[in-house]
């Protein structure tokens, strides 16, 4: 009972944050909205017994990624207001149709399976502790894990290379 209540509340919060993100004029407001949604999702993770992932969600996503976003928003100096007129013809109608349609299709298609799905709470749950995740991560999925190491290294190198501010060559200055 409690769980349903918690779920309902935070579901609303998540959807609200998402809508704020999409519709806010100021990009900083959008970032805050997204942040809210991420926190709600962390709550959902806890409800689903995925404690480790919940922690990681808050740490990495809300902590690192969104912070980075806010840094860049501030740095680029984006205009506070954005022109609301749509340039591309048919863009808005297509967007609305696609998103509503997609949601509807998934909900209708999934509804038949989800209702008969297993319950979260009870004997059949997953153990979402860090030990369980670590067992799987460093056991069966070691290769994938090590690949992400490479991925992060490459990402870091690429970022540094791209963000470098190269000075002009001396000849051109004189």
């Amino acid at each position: 009972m409690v769980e349903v209540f918690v779920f309902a509340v935070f579901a609303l919060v998540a959807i609200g944050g998402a809508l704020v993100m999409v519709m806010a004029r100021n990009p900083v407001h959008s970032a805050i909205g997204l942040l809210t949604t991420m926190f709600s999702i962390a709550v959902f993770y806890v409800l689903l017994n995925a404690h480790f992932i919940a922690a990681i969600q808050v740490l990495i996503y809300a902590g690192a990624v969104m912070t980075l976003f806010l840094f860049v928003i501030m740095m680029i100096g984006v205009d506070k207001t954005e022109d609301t007129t749509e340039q591309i013809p048919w863009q808005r109608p297509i967007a609305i149709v696609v998103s509503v349609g997609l949601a509807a299709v998934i909900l209708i298609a999934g509804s038949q399976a989800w209702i008969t799905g297993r319950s979260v709470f009870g004997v059949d749950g997953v153990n979402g502790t860090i030990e369980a995740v670590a067992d799987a991560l460093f056991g069966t999925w070691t290769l994938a894990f090590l690949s992400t190491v490479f991925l992060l290294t490459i990402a870091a190198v690429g970022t540094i290379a791209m963000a470098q501010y190269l000075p002009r060559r001396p000849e051109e200055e004189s």
Partner: protein
Amino acid sequence: MIDYLWLLIVLPLLGAATLIVFGKRIGEPWAGWLASALVGAAFLLAAGFTVPLLTGDGQPETVELFSWIPVLGVDASLLWDPLAAFMTLIVTGVGLLIHVYAVGYMHRDERFGRFFGYLNLFIASMLTLVLASNFAVMFVGWELVGLSSYLLISFWFVRPAAAAAGKKAFIVNRIGDWGFLVGLMLIFAAFGTFSFGAIFETAPDVLSTAMATAITLALFIGAVGKSAQIPLYVWLPDAMEGPTPVSALIHAATMVTAGIYMMARSAVLFELAPATLVVVATVGAVTALYAATLAMGQRDIKRVLAYSTISQLGYMVLAVGVTAFTAGLFHLMTHAFFKALLFLGAGAVIHALGGEQDMRKMGGLRKVMPITFWTMVVGWLAISGVAPLSGFWSKDEVLAAAFAHGTYYVVLWAMGVVAALLTAFYMTRLMILTFGGEERWPDGADPHEAPKVVTVPLVVLAVFAGLAGVINTPFRESLEHFLEPSFEGVTQQSPAEGPTVVVLALVALIAALVGIFIAWGRYSKKVPEERGGYWKAARNGYGVDDWYGRLVVAPGKAMATWAGETLDGRIVDGLVNGVGGSVKSLGNSLSGSQSGWVRWYGAVMAASTLGVLLWLLLSGGLF
């Protein structure tokens, strides 16, 4: 030994290849001697191969060369039997003499070497036709002689008349070839093979009369084209544009006889189709008479001989039509001798007068060119059918066979006799206008006797034209016995027996003498004008060419123009351009979607994804 039969074809073929490629470098006169030597070698080989057939030791042999079209079961193989030997000796023998003559005639011609290359190509093609052991190889030879004829007729292609004549010959021949091809297809449908042996052995059992009639009519159309009968004779007079050796070799002695040979070879099939034989005989007799009337009015010496050839071919076709195959072949041989002789002599005359071919500008040449004159006399008497020269025997045998064949054929016999009279008339006219009377030469002409390389062949041919009759007189039918193995299973019409033969011979002889007499009376004193009415019509070929032009050529040209301009220019090009244009406009309209805006791309992708998802779900039974 007989395994080397293919040498007969390969030797002149090698000569052709060498001379066409290197002819200019080999030059005059070695090119001519090389070509003549190759034909001479072929003649000697053929003679060697014929000896066993003469002594009675030899059997007809088939020499298989290689498998040509395995799908249809067609082999490239050659047949050596008396009929093939007969034709081969004529082709290579007369061919050799004409090659030698041409060395002198084509003196100082620019393309001397190439001429001899083409001549050798012709010999090789004709031998392919004659030595073939199945219809497919024969057809190859058939087509190749048509090609060689075209090349040689339009040899001096810079003259528009010569180029046009070559085209005309090829195209009219093509109509005949169409008939031949239809015949081949019918043969294959009926027999499943092209091989002579298989066909002629099983034909009496396999063929219905209707099928045999269809096949033989189709084959006869081919013969009509190649052997210049009505209605496909119009190419032969124009073919005189070619050099005279060409006219002698191809259009007198050999190529035009290919049709006769083909029909003689297919005698078994023709015997199974009596209806066709009636058609054949009638066409032959009518052509003989018709062409003779045309020959009477010509002023060009070569055109007289051309129409004369058509007329004599009519005799041969008539012989085939009354199933007197030996008689027809006999006349083919004697005609080869005397017609080649006449053409070569005419060539010597033309050359001596610096290219003049109009007989009104000749005359009195007997004093200046005695050898030519006397050999031409032999040819003249032979063709007129004066005994005891060869032409008398062969023409008589044809006419006697026609007379004995049946009541209807007496009409054809009568036509043949009238044609013989006319033949004698116009040949005498030719001789008198050319050699007799006063000199009417063009200015600056200084005729003298031809060099030995020209006169020796004339003499040799004269000897044969005079004496060749002995091989098949009613007293001693050597030729018929010789050719017997080739005509197994064929009932030939033999000339009437006993006193009838003598009477018929006398009738023909009298007709010939009457013709000579009338012409002598008309022309020996002065040269009549011969300007209007019949004479003009005859010179114009009775307007037949104009009729063909209006009926056949003009619609053909109109169709070709329509096809080229409308069909190709507008419809096909329109289609192609239309495809191009529509692709272009499609591309233009689609390029609007490449706006460069990422969000637009994203929108399209998302919409497509939704579409695919929907489709998958719906086909999986969502609702």
